[in-house]
């Protein structure tokens, strides 16, 4: 599913809308260059989930955990400094009890999990506008209509 997002507020809004589709145990893979809007997207997601604490770039710490309103956690990961999927394991994340969002998710994460949602954010020639491509993999997402995110 392709979307055009015109402002950073709209990017936050997209994240917020996505929250409504997510369950504990879900994995969201975010890709896009520096400054594309991955953290902005996650901020909107976190707000809609009622996440405790401010959503901040996890580059420094690799992963940040936030308790969320429904119980369980939002785990916000920056995978750039991880060389492989096994290092994701080392972060000791309770996947079943969390919604995990991974920034800088790259090829190595394909095949890491059977079920995941992929959000690719690309810049355009316009400084503010982004093109977002959403896709899902695995039985978890069968029958889930991503069009509601429009």
């Amino acid at each position, binding site marked *: 599913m392709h979307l055009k997002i015109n402002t950073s507020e709209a990017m936050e809004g997209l994240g917020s809308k996505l929250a409504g589709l997510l369950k504990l145990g879900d994995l969201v893979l975010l890709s896009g*260059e520096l400054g594309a809007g991955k953290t902005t997207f996650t901020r909107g997601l976190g707000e809609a989930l009622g996440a405790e604490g401010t959503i901040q770039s996890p580059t420094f710490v690799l992963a940040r955990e936030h308790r969320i309103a429904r119980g369980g956690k939002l785990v916000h990961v920056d995978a750039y*400094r*991880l*060389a492989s999927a096994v290092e994701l*394991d*080392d972060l000791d994340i*309770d996947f079943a009890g969390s919604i995990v969002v991974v920034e800088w998710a790259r090829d190595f994460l394909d095949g890491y999990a059977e079920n995941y949602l992929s959000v690719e954010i690309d810049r355009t020639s316009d400084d503010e506008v982004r093109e977002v491509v959403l896709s899902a993999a695995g039985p978890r997402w069968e029958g889930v209509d991503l069009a509601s995110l429009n």
Partner: protein
Amino acid sequence: MLLSIDTSAGTSAALFDGEKLLSSVFSDDPFGHAENIAKAITEVLSQANVAANTLEEIAVGIGPAPYTGLRVGIAAAKALSGGLGVSLHGVMVLDAIAFSRTEARLLVTTDAKRGELFAAGYLSGKREFGPKVIDPSTTTEFVGYEHVSESADAEKVGRYAVWALKNGVDLGETRAIYLRSPDVTPSPGKRVSG
């Protein structure tokens, strides 16, 4: 009086008077080590009506085990032994598991995360190889070994420590056994422009 602590899987503590087990506390929560560690220690002491300052030895499981939880037990044990002024003994947890078994030839494995196993092999109670990291698919290569896959706990750690100390086995190593380096790749820096 020996207190054993283990956080290699769950969080547990056990108290021994010589070889006799006086009390034992165990929580199998794989995530709550920091929350549970103090309670485990204070409860195992109060169940046996023993004061902390009468302890003479502390034994702790030093892994190999999932790192975050493992460190909680070792940190607590170090501080406890330092504060009480008593010796700290480190037990490699696969040894403790093997000691609790009777099989002649034993392959002991525990979960190493990352889809791998920590493993060690024993013959007539003596460690032949390990601890090391192996791929689960290779366990069948250990022909003639009874494969045991179970967790360690403070009771096993304590029993082994009591025997080891009595039989002159060196338990002086108290650093954590990780078997793997952190392996995070130094990053080259992100480009902005496409």
